[in-house]
């Protein structure tokens, strides 16, 4: 049964083609045909069509990114700047500071370090900052790559961002250098970095052998310890690969709990196939959001439940889910999201505020002793308490050339800054079956 019609891309030629989102016995699929290159059918959702459509209730127009938008000429996804048709705001802006990398993972969305060497100097990076500022916001800023920590001048790059008013600076990192070089880590903190967005695929080394080619769990633990010592926050970012680490989803949550409050959240990313990956993916090599949510409930023995999570407020709510928990006195997570409270702010602004509050470094857990103070102290103390006791659990499936829904892309709020323009993440990193890119480099 057809649930919705949309448009997608041919995985071979990247031409725009019609697509249908269809319900079948075992899930929801994106089906499309290129007259030159044949039929493609990719799983989007292993759940019922009804459960897929229920998430549409959270769909919301983001109001666009602001700033100088490009004209619509060829249509999505060829006019990114973004173009006038884009409805997503800006919740995070990415900057690629290097294409070098100290690892060579079997799976890498940016194909580092194989891509041509490129490293913008500080002046070029400041131009990228100005591109972001032209939208009228200072969103959370993420340094990406490559491995950003290979740049010795990353503290200066962060300082330049701080000077321009960026407050929430994140580094997307494998953590290898930061496990050893604590002086460098401290310099990053002193120059405005707040968060490590830490690649963290599992709690045992067999996972890292499969996803990254070597043992890394002790490295990850060392990075987290170092961050705890210098006062940086950590968000664990597992790429979930069926058969490799989908059985560790619950253990990753337990690990995160053990490391609260330095670990502020876990952000699960079902594997997407762009950049470098071993072979053209079969549907069995995909894991979808309902499966991640089911695993969260089952593997935590119901400590977190599917109903604790909300879909993303976006043009297409299937872009992400999030849950927000506080650690109770008995050591169990308690959901703090309300089914009835709904923010009046625009979706991207709400996400920005949420990340700024709950992914940021937090003071050590407060004792919250009785005192003779009046009620005036409550708001600050309550916020401190929540920050020190909270954990976010979220997930985001990126779109690749097989499963991309162009209507969903129009609502994207994660943008990569390039010279003079902002390109939605999934358009920027998308590669054809032959490795051809739409934008990247």
């Amino acid at each position, binding site marked *: 049964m057809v649930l919705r019609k949309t448009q997608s891309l041919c995985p071979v030629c990247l031409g725009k083609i019609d697509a249908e989102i269809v319900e079948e016995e075992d899930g929801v699929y994106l089906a499309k045909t290129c007259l030159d290159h044949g039929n493609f059918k990719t799983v989007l959702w292993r759940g019922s069509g009804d459960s897929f459509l229920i998430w549409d209730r959270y769909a919301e127009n983001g109001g666009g990114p602001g700033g100088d938008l490009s004209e619509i000429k060829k249509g999505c996804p060829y006019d990114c700047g973004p173009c006038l048709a884009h409805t997503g705001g800006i919740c995070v802006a990415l900057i690629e500071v290097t294409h070098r990398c100290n690892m060579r993972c079997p799976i890498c969305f940016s194909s580092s370090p194989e891509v041509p060497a490129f490293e913008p100097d500080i002046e070029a990076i400041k131009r990228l900052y100005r591109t972001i500022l032209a939208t009228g916001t200072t969103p959370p800023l993420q340094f990406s790559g490559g491995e950003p920590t290979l740049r010795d001048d990353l503290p200066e790059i962060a300082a330049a961002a701080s000077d321009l008013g960026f407050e929430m600076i994140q580094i997307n990192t494998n953590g290898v250098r930061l496990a050893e070089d604590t002086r460098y880590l401290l310099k990053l903190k002193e120059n405005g970095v707040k968060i490590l967005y830490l690649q963290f695929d599992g709690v045992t080394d067999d996972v890292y052998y499969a996803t990254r080619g070597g043992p890394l769990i002790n490295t990850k633990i060392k990075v987290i310890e170092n961050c705890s010592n210098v006062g940086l926050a950590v968000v664990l970012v597992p790429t979930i690969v069926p058969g490799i680490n989908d059985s560790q989803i619950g253990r990753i949550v337990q690990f995160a709990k053990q490391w609260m409050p330095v670990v502020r959240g876990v952000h699960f990313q079902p594997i997407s196939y762009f950049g470098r990956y071993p072979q053209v993916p079969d549907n069995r090599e995909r894991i979808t959001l309902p499966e991640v949510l089911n695993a969260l409930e089952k593997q935590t023995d119901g400590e977190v439940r599917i109903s604790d999570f*909300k879909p993303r*407020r976006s043009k297409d709510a299937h872009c992400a889910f*999030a849950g*927000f928990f*506080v650690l*109770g*006195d008995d050591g169990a997570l*308690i959901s*703090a*999201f*309300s089914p009835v*409270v*709904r*923010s*009046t702010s625009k979706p991207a602004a*709400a*996400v920005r*505020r*949420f990340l700024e*509050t709950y992914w940021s470094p937090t003071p050590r857990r407060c004792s*919250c002793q*009785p*005192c*003779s*103070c*009046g*009620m*005036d*102290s*409550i*708001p600050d*103390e*309550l*916020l401190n*308490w*929540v920050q020190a*006791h909270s954990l976010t659990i979220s997930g985001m499936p990126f779109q690749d050339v097989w499963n991309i829904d162009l209507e969903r892309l129009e609502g994207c709020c994660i943008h990569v800054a390039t010279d003079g323009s902002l390109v939605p993440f999934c358009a920027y990193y998308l590669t054809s079956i032959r490795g051809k890119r739409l934008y990247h480099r």
Partner: protein
Amino acid sequence: MAEMGEAWEEWYCFKCNEKVTEGEVQFSYLQFKKPVKGTRCPKCGAVFVSEEMGRKLRSIEEQIEDK
């Protein structure tokens, strides 16, 4: 609700018509619990929350409970 100002001694509970008293009140949210000084009706126990405090707590609630 209005700002109470300094002279809380002159305030009465709207429902019970009792003069409010100052004492320890328990504030709790999720598992955050904190006894603070507050003003309450000795009969029904209603605690006076100023408009400004109400707004602040509403804003925090929105931050916590929605994304």
